[in-house]
């Protein structure tokens, strides 16, 4: 019982500290990551719109 009690205490300290440390880092660095994701989505949206416009022009030209 003493071994398990010691084992779970050490495990709990590692788990709690890791949770707090990673949560802190993610809370700060995640903002930049989120902005990049939204910018990438916006850029992809613009590219798709340009492609569609290009296709329409191409269709008109072919007619």
């Amino acid at each position, binding site marked *: 019982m003493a071994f*398990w009690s010691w084992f779970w205490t050490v495990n709990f300290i590692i*788990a709690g500290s890791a*949770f707090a440390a990673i949560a802190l*880092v993610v809370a700060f660095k995640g903002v930049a990551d989120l902005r990049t994701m939204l910018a990438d*989505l916006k850029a992809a949206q613009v590219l*798709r719109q340009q492609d569609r416009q290009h296709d329409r022009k191409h269709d008109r030209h072919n007619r």
Partner: protein
Amino acid sequence: MNFSAIDWVIVVVYIAITLAAGLAGKKYITDATDFLLAGRHLGKFIGIATLAATEIGTITFMYYAELGYKTGFSSFINGLIAGGVMIFLGATGFMIFKLRDLGLTTVPEFFEVKYSRRLRLIAGILVAVGGLLNMGVFLKVEGTFLTIIAGLPLSDLKWTMTVILFLELLYTVLGGMVSVVITDFIQFVMLSIGTLLVTGYVIYTVGWSNMQHAVATNMGANGFSPISNPDYGWAYILFQILLWMAVDTCWQTTAMRTFATKDPETSKKVFFWTGFIFLGRGMMPMLWGIGALAYFGAGHDSLQAMPDMIARILPTGVLGIVVAGMLAATMSVNSSYLLGWSSVISQDIILPLRREPLSQNSQVVLNRTVNVFVSLFVLFWGVWYVLPGPVYFYLNITGTLFLAGAFSAFIGGLFWKRASTIGGYCALLGGAVGSATYFFKIPAAYAGMSAFLLAALGMTIGSLLFPKSSSKLISA
């Protein structure tokens, strides 16, 4: 009523910010990939936030605290396995690297890529049934927590459930995965603050040595050793390792995060670091349950003991922050699960059954409609279904219904050249039959182990007896 005006203000401000952020996601949606996978633009940090937030809900706190209250420190084995398996997968890239490389949208899609279209349909039905039964109990358990902690009468439970569901449905339907990721980030920060605050207060108020004493007095050595505890033992530990390997690779909501990252290397990093969060995700709420055991003694309702204790030990203001954190946890899980199961129903059941393909816009509309129907099912199931045992075991088994077979089929499809479509059918059937034995009074550990064993046998024997060439003829 435990809530003061300041607590209500904190919760209302949090809900307003989350809704505004969630609704802002709508403008980034142009096609089904944006709606379901945020265009596959997830980076490392936002990937960790969304994966952690998706799998940490009030339901998680409730079932882990229940285990802590009932089985003491030996329950920590569940957190150790959940975190350890995820760290292993992230460090080695085992399965997740190849899965991200395939460019999938849903888990059942794998079955069409590696096996056949018909097997994808069957996998889709199994995923949807297991997933909906699994999610069906979330609202009731979460509603119970929030009702108790706010000091509302339990007769208000149905209204609490309906309001929670309506809020998360609102932004999930409109902004899909983009909204889910944005809100997951805010929710991850809030739930982390809430989790750490409660843990600190429980240790400070109840005391570590009092908790050890309470477990030793009520359970003896079984409260510390997962080997000697009759609820666990080696069969259970082996089942949990297999289950978590399967959850991390084949569970729709987790797999969606793998599929949505920028590249396979990012997936590995996300899993590795989230694994450490998973250690705390398990052990901290289990400690709250142990704290409740020391606080109330052994006669309390096992599911309600933890929220009852929290409502009594947290001061005004802190209670509001913690409830906002728990609400964040609730909404992040439910919105991701809504999106996950809806995507399976629309992409893997409805679309394959149609002869004509749907346009991208129609696919988004279909996903939104299915979202609403899934919500209605979850609401009604939560109201009338009575759990047959501890919540954690129910969730394990409803998940295993699909996971055991899918895990064997994934391993076969990724690493075994002789894996055939008939092997895939046998694996899904074996997994479903094995896990269903739980509902015939077989203990969860044995039901779970038999599901994984039968699935592996099904894959091996089915593939050897009906190799690829013959199984194509049979399934055609």
